[in-house]
């Protein structure tokens, strides 16, 4: 009987050791889902009734106001509102004859031993 009790205690300790991992996974999942929340979630879990979670969250793909920012970043902003109030409005276009910038070579990156970018080298041509 003592052996059985010891076995159950060890089983309990082993299962309790899994708790931090489950909590860590759930926290990471919550952090990941907070970046882009679905409008509706439907869960079919094992042994549980189907759950439907409505957040009615919508996101706006808002281009930058500056046309060069649009072109060079090539990405709209993913915002919960239709506009970005901190994005300055562009009221005038560069005058005719404004330097034309081209990128004749591919941008090269310098990496350190850990694979981190330490330098970016870009050669541009202005005419």
């Amino acid at each position, binding site marked *: 009987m003592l052996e*059985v009790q010891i076995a*159950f205690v060890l*089983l309990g300790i082993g*299962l309790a050791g*899994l708790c931090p991992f*489950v909590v860590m*996974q*759930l926290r990471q*999942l919550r952090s*990941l*889902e907070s*970046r*882009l929340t*679905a*409008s*509706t*979630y*439907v*869960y*079919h*879990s*094992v*042994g*549980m009734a189907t759950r439907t979670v409505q957040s009615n*969250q*919508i*996101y*706006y*793909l*808002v*281009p*930058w*106001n500056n*046309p*060069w920012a*649009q*072109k*060079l*970043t*090539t*990405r*709209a*902003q*993913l915002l919960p509102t*239709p*506009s970005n109030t901190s994005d300055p409005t*562009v*009221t*005038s*276009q560069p*005058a*005719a004859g404004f330097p*034309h*910038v*081209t*990128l004749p070579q*591919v941008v090269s990156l310098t990496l350190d031993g850990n694979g981190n970018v330490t330098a970016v080298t870009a050669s541009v041509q202005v005419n």
Partner: protein
Amino acid sequence: MYLRSQPSRGPTQRCCGFTVTEMVLGTFLMALLAVLLAAAVATFARPAAEVDGRTRLALEASLAAEALARDLGGYLADNSGVPGTLTQYQFNNWVPSSDGTTLVLNYQGTPPAPVSLSVTYQEQNYGLVRTLSNGVQNMVVASHVTGFNASLCDSDGSPDPAGSYLRIEITLTYPDPSSPRQSNPSFSGTYVLIGVQPPPLPAQ
């Protein structure tokens, strides 16, 4: 005098097997162990499976949103790394199909680019496929896609055939119907993205 030796008694012969008491006790312990294991599965395995499915959904949704954000940023992303001028590769308009299953994004392509370029989004084989108009670049930007719908709308997302905004609904399901794993658990999420027209180029 002889002492008659008594036949020595050997160890008591025990019958093989186990008693009813031992069987009942063993059954009780097995039942207790089964309950504990079931509780452990419910506590740890179910969240693990849920984390797996929901993480896949979140990642695929992020990929789909990123691809759409890149193409709705005002300019075509596939510009060969040459910035060019402000008119090259500029976004022109979006054309969702009448049933909403296909979205076409048109761009200007002043020389040296082709006259016009378009990017098409549609759901194929449970993937969101992005196709450039040259017909060569066909790319799956997200998997587990079970629904894709694009339509014109107002700024609040309500449907409006004459609206100036674009409502994109993407439904992701894991595991999707093409997956060999068709058992529970399964998860699905519907993501709503609204495209905003880029502002017109400022006058000189």
